[in-house]
Structure formats: C-alpha cells, structure tokens
C-alpha cells in the first residue's frame, strides 16, 4: 500500500486545499498520472502520482485544506512492497483553521521512520531541483528511491492535461508572492546590475527567420533573450543554483524559470528544463505551452519546484527596465525590459537602434558584481550573434 500525500511544491508551501479528484477508488493509476488538483498559494496545481496500482481509498474530500505530507489517498500496489512511512517534511505549525475544524483522520497518525533515498539519488534530485517528496515509490533496495526513480520523476512524460477550467485564487497567490518576496528581501543581500544592449542584429535576424514561416513557427524576441540568458549561465555557473542552509549548491542543469504574469495580478515562474540545450523553436513551443497552462492553472508540481534561476521579460508593453527580486532559494533573476528604439552611437555616428536593458539581481552571498558583470556582458555578446543561439 502506498500513501499518496499532499506534496510540497516549494519552500513556502505549508498546506494545500484539495480542489479536485481526477480518480475514484478502484481506478488504476500509473506513475506520472495526474490524479488530483491542489489549490495552493501559487494557484491550482495538478499533482502527479509516482506509484502504480489501484486507488483503494480517498481519504481527503474535495475542499479540505491539509498540511504538506498529509496522506490524501492510498494506492494498492498489488504485490509491491509497502513503502516505509515518512514524516511530513514540514514541522507541525499551529493547525490551520480548516484542519482544526475537521475531525482527525486515523490515517494521519504520526509517522516516524525515515524514507530511504540513495546518496546518488539525493544528489541528482538537488541538481534537478526535484522535490524528493514528489516521488512516492522507490524501486531500489528496501524500497529506496534510487537514481532511476529521480530521473523518471524528472522526465515524466506529460500526457495532455484534461481540459478543466479552474479558477485561480489570486488573493492566495498574492499571499504566496508576498511570503516569497518578503523572505527574499529579508534574507538575500541583493546586488543589481544593468546593461543596455543593441538588438539591431538580433531583431534583423529574427525578422528574416520569421518572414517565411507560418505564425505557429514564428519566434518572439523573448525567446532570444531566454536562450541568451541560459547560455550565458554556462559561463557563470555560480548564478545557477540554490542557496540553502548556508551553502550554495550549484545546479547540474540550467532550468530557467520563465516568469509569466497572470491577468489580474499574480506571477508564476515554471521551469523550462535544460533551457540552454533547447533550440529556439523548442523554446518557443515550451514557452507557449507554459503560458497556456499557467493561465489555465494546469501547471505541474515538478515544473514549480525545479527552476534554477528566473528570467523575466516584460514584453512590448512593459517598462523600460526591470529590477528583479530573487525567488528563494535561487540566487539570481535576470530581467529584460521593453525593447525601445533610441539613439545609439555606432562607429561615431548616432543611429536609431532597438535597445533593451538587461538587468541582473543576484545574491551577494554567492557572487559579487564582477561575476554579475561578466554574466551581463556574456548575454550582450550572445545577442550580437543570434544565428548561433
């Protein structure tokens, strides 16, 4: 019997409200299936299951708010050895009201033993910024979570999400943003740098690229920004990772969290895995898919927990420059302002050029302005050679 639990979807999440069950007792599930929707401070998140078997019991009804780690359902693994039980990863806080009103569930008894995770799996999960709590069942010795489980969780095939419309609780999201940004400003000594970059070559190249392509294959300038920002991280890897418990943990891959503004307020930055390795066309598709799903509230848990840095681009209606606030535990955020045509000195003459202000906010505990400056210079340089992006 495997426990399907309220996952932790980020450093700031303590509890979530179950808003929809996509399975019922008796349904067969396999690893990677989305079986529930949880409303969190970040919005509605589809929650994937990482066990295989038959849903034997649904323990938490729709509408109930429970702490992270609470068993939501049980899945009968049919011959699969039972998983060792584990404690909720969040220490018990004063009980949320909703829980205080609900009658205690016998299945949410205190759980003491520690789940088994191999050292290699643990390290890989850190590199992938993957929350091990999302892996329900290990396939290793004594049910331990091993590398293969982490890799599988990180690259779960994403079946087309069911087209359900769910409301976003913007006030909740506001609270989440408030919590994360307050923590950021409280804990992270930010430093800020900016660089103005001439986009003449990039936009000329992009225009030509888009000219003979149908609309679906066209690429937005933001994609160039995203790719340049990701590639430049290869040169300055200290901006890519997490600062936790007093140490910087560099990330093994570059998974940029792409900031998506939600209409009516709210912001979410799901990860685009291996941003630096994707082609521009792939990045455009990934971005389109994320925006679509973010707007619908169909993001996946793993997408929210894996960014290694955030990139924000305000688009053509935004401000000329943006100075970001780092999303903890990340250590940097890169901002692209609105592209504006302005006078620019070119070989001694003043010309009219499309310019963008690229900014960097970074964690002074990990890097200092020199690294940041080198990074921005790399972004600027990469944008002068769009054909290589």
């Amino acid at each position, binding site marked *: 019997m495997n426990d399907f639990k309220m996952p932790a979807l980020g450093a700031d999440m303590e509890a979530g409200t179950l808003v929809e069950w996509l399975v019922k007792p008796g349904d067969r599930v396999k690893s990677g299936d989305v079986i529930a929707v949880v409303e969190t401070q970040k919005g509605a998140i589809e929650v994937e299951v990482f066990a295989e078997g038959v849903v034997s019991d649904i323990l938490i009804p729709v509408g109930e708010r429970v702490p992270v780690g609470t068993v939501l359902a049980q899945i009968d693994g049919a011959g699969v050895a039972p998983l060792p039980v584990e404690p909720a990863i969040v220490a018990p806080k004063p009980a949320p009201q909703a829980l205080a009103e609900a009658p205690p569930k016998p299945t949410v008894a205190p759980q003491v033993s520690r789940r088994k995770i191999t050292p290699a799996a643990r390290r890989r999960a850190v590199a992938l910024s993957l929350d091990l709590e999302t892996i329900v069942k290990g396939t290793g010795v004594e049910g331990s979570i091993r590398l293969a489980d982490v890799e599988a969780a990180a690259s779960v095939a994403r079946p087309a999400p069911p087209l359900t*419309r769910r409301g976003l609780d913007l006030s909740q999201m506001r609270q989440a943003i408030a919590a994360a940004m307050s923590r950021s400003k409280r804990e992270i000594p930010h430093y800020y740098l900016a660089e103005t970059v001439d986009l003449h070559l990039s936009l000329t190249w992009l*225009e030509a690229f*888009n*000219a003979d392509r*149908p*609309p*679906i294959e*066209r690429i*937005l*300038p*933001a994609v160039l920004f995203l790719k340049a920002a990701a590639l430049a991280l290869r040169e300055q890897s200290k901006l890519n990772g997490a600062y936790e418990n007093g140490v910087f943990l560099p990330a093994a891959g570059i998974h940029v969290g792409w900031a998506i*503004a939600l*209409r*009516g307020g709210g912001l979410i930055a799901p990860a685009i895995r291996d941003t630096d390795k994707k082609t521009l066309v792939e990045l455009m598709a990934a*971005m*389109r898919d994320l*925006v*679509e799903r973010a*707007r*619908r509230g169909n993001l996946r848990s793993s997408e929210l927990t894996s960014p290694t840095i955030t990139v924000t681009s305000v*688009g*053509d*209606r935004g401000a000329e420059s943006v100075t970001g606030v780092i999303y903890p535990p990340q250590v940097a955020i890169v901002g692209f302002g609105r592209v504006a045509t302005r006078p620019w000195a070119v070989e001694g003459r003043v010309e009219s050029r499309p310019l963008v202000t690229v900014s960097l906010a970074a964690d002074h505990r990990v890097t200092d302005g020199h690294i940041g400056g080198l990074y921005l210079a790399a972004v600027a340089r990469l944008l002068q050679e769009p054909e290589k992006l």
Partner: protein
Amino acid sequence: MTDAEIRALILELICDIAPELDPASARDQDDLREIFDLDSMDFANLIVAIHDRTKIAIPEADYNKLFTLAGATAYVREALASSAARTR
C-alpha cells in the same frame, strides 16, 4: 465571412487565449492588448489562431494592423478577399 462573423471569431479566439475575460466589453477602437491585457505571447497566439481558422497569411510586419478589433476585422476581411481573388 461578414465583418460581424469576423469580429465574433476574433473575440472567440481571444477567449480561448484568455478564458477569464468578458469579450462583450470590447470596443472596436480599443487596443486589444490593453483591454484584454494580452502580452506578446498572447498576441502571437492570437495571430496563430486567426491563421489557423482563416488560412490567411499575416506577415510579422503587419501585426500592428491587428492591434484593434476594428483593424483586425478589416485586415482579415481584406486578406480573405485577396486570397479569394487569387484562387479564382
């Protein structure tokens, strides 16, 4: 397609992109991006959707002609007419 049909189609497509909006509030001369809070990606998706449904070519250089509901309606109408002329 009549202008009314084209206008209705465009609003339908915007609704797909921004389901939480009320299309009835749109006025012809409003910048769609402003009133519907469409960002670059939303607008690009709108162009894709219009192209898919009408099969008209919309070069990137023409995007600014589609910023208002009136402009978009006119652009689609003319493009449909010229493509019909070519086919004939």
